Every structure is written in C-alpha cells, then in structure tokens.
C-alpha cells in the first residue's frame, strides 16, 4: 500500500486490494469532483493499455473522488494515471494558446474596424 508520507493533508491516496498486483488500483483524489474526475477519465480511456477506467464521488457531502484504473497485462496502473494527467495538461496548454491567439486576432480586427 503506498500512502503519502510526512504531509498531514494528502491530496492523493492509493488503495490496492491485498494480494493483487499493481495493475488494478483505486486512487482517492481529495478535494476534487466531476470537474477533474470526468475530464481525467476521458483522457485515460483514450489509452489503449487501459482495460477499465471509472470514477465516482463517494458521497455528495464529501469532496472525494474514487478513481479506478485497471490495465491490460503487467503495466502498473500509475502509468496511465500519470500519462492521463500529462495529456490533460497538454490539452489545456494548447487550448490556452489557441484561445489567446484567437482573442488577440479578434481584438486587432476590432481595432482596425474602428479606425
């Protein structure tokens, strides 16, 4: 069982059944909800090595998300989790760049139209 050490407030906990290997793992994400849960689930499902990926919130009053990943073969489940986070980060970066570029062009066009 891997848990964060030293920190009083863990944002991420890992829960694994006794006797199972690294390929089926449930991650508990604290202070999260559908915002990150659903978008991360989508990114991880796009990975062909993932056999199962799903998330749920434990109780509407708790801000915890149970995130389960099962991988094909021997791949440890943290790998698709890490890849999903990186991919989602990459998507956000590209969306930000595209949005800001479009915004800049729009503002310039508006300036020109006014002159």
């Amino acid at each position, binding site marked *: 069982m891997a848990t964060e050490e030293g920190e009083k407030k863990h944002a991420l906990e890992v829960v694994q059944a006794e006797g199972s290997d690294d390929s089926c793992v449930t991650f508990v994400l604290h202070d*999260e909800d559908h915002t990150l849960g659903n978008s991360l689930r989508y990114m991880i499902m796009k990975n062909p090595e993932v056999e199962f990926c799903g998330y749920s919130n434990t109780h509407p009053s708790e801000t915890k998300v149970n995130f389960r990943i099962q991988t094909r073969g021997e791949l440890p489940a943290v790998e698709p989790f890490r890849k999903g986070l990186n991919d*989602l980060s990459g*998507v956000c970066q590209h969306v930000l760049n595209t949005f*800001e570029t*479009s915004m800049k062009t729009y503002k310039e066009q508006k300036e020109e139209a006014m002159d």
Partner: protein
Amino acid sequence: MAAPKSNVEEIRNRVILGEYGVRNVHTTDFPGNYRGYDDTWDQKKFEENFRVDIIEMDESTGTLEFDMVGIDAAIANAFRRILLAEVPTMAVEKVFIYNNTSIVQDEILAHRLGLIPIKADPRLFEYRSAGDEEGTEIDTIQFQLNIKCSRNPRATKDSTDPSELYLNHMVYTKHMKWIPIGNQADLFSEADICPVHDDILIAKLRPGQELDIVMHCVKGIGQDHAKFSPVATASYRLLPEISLMQAVEGDLAEKLKHCFSKGVIEIENVNGRKFAKVANSRLDTCSREVLRYEELKNKVKLARVRDHFIFSVESTGILPPDVLVSEAIKVLMAKCRRFLDELDSSQVD
C-alpha cells in the same frame, strides 16, 4: 454485421434529436470500440482539428461568445464548471457593524454587502491563511460605509417625494469608501479598488437612522459561496445541424419555416416554385417543433455536432470575460500539476 460507414460517422459525431428522446449522447470514440478507427489519444491530431473562433466580445456588458471545436464534452464541461465555481475573486466576507439603526436587519445587510461585486484583480491578492482573524495587506481589502439620513431643511412644506424631503435616504454602493491597509495606497489607486457598479441600492434610511460599517473583503471561490463566482453565468450549447432529407416546397415549406427559430430556414424561388433551404442552423434553439407534424417529421433530420461547443460567458465586471476563460484553463492545468507533483513526491520515497 458492420454498420454502413456513413452510419458509423453519424454515431461517432452527432447527437440525434428524435421525436421522443435524444439518442447517441455519449462519447464512444475510445480505442477498441470501432474497427478500423484508431482512437488512441494523439496530441498532434488533436492540435490539427482543434480551433477556437471568437464570435463576439462586448466589453461594456462583459459578454463573450466563442466556439470551441474539436474537443470533448468532458473537458468543455470542466471549463464551464471552473468558470462558475473555481476562478477566485474578492468579495466582502467580514462585516463589522458599529451602528445600524436602519430598518434592515444586521444579517440581511451583511448578506447584501457580500453579494456586491468588488472590482479588484484577485490575482494580486493571496488567500487568507486559516485562523487569521485580522487580515494583512496582501489578503484583505477594507471598505467603510458611513452614512446618516437627515431631514432636508430646504424641502417645500407640502412635498411628499422622499428624495426631496430627506438627505441621504438611499444608500448606494457609491457611498462605500475604500480604506487602504499597509502599502495598498502605493500599489492601487481609487479607481482600481471599488465596487463594480456605483448604483446598487444597499439600504433605505429615514431621518435619524444611520449606518456605520467596516467591511473586509477576502479572496475566495464560488464553490465556497456563490458571491465569489466571477461570472453572471457561463454556459455552452452544441451546434445544431438541420438536414432536409427530401425537397420541401410550397405551403409545406412555409410551415417548415415557422417550425424553426427565425432565420434558420429560408424560402428560395426556383423556377417559380418555392423551396425551403437551411440558411443558418446555428440560430436554432432545437425545440423539435417540426417533429410534431406528420407531414414534416420524416423530411427533416435534427442533430447536434458532438464536438462543437458554443460558449457564452457573461462576467460580473470584476475581470473581462476573456481573462476569465484564460484563468479557468489555468486552474485546470494547476489541478493536473498538483496531482503530478503528489505522484512524483511519493515515487521518490
């Protein structure tokens, strides 16, 4: 039995609006679901297909309409949720009421003051640390509201209009005065820190009643209390798609035109006969009215394009709407980064 190729494309890309329900809602393009399609996540393919089109931005009303094409609903929804609840702003949190002889109860007054949008760039402030009661210059903005209503000595004897009879009987946000703490006077000017609107009515007074209030504003997010939400609202809809399966002419064409919103269907004259054609399906509100008529329902196909989102963001005035969208995207990136750092710190051990 393999479905015909066009059918597969439809299942993958369109949400079908049927007579009794909406079909094909969920995203199904995951690896392994469709033979012959490689649905593995490919950043390059995503970047090629993705685009953002700004339709309109109005600075005065704080509205922004833009299209995001080529992204999945899960991520578009994440942006919408963050715009509503996780982009921080400054709002009145602690209200110190030294004197309130007005007819408005203390707690009602404090609630109203909390909902007033405060124009202060939240990126220049920090969150207040837990347990800190006083507040420092880096996490607090202080306002003062000091107003006393009195009788107007110059009013005519038989007037009944309160604005003639009384002085200061309406308390507006323009009466809120910013009190700089610490070095805030050097960093900000009067115009930087003030309520967004001058004319929000806070309370009504009569002669002899007065308000003597000090307010502290802190940084917070909409998840904690809706007063911290930076948007009046943020929403999106999918691009509608209307296709005519058969030619519709004459009176039937007129009827078809009236089933949709204005500007969606136009009548064109071909060789003296009137035919209906789809002019601009973007304007449609998708009421599915056309499916109520037997003679029309088989001639039209109503659908929505699954990856084309028409966003509408309306800011409360604290930050311009395009800044809000950029901040929302950065919040999602920060969330990913937080978990990546947690993973890294635990791997090292």
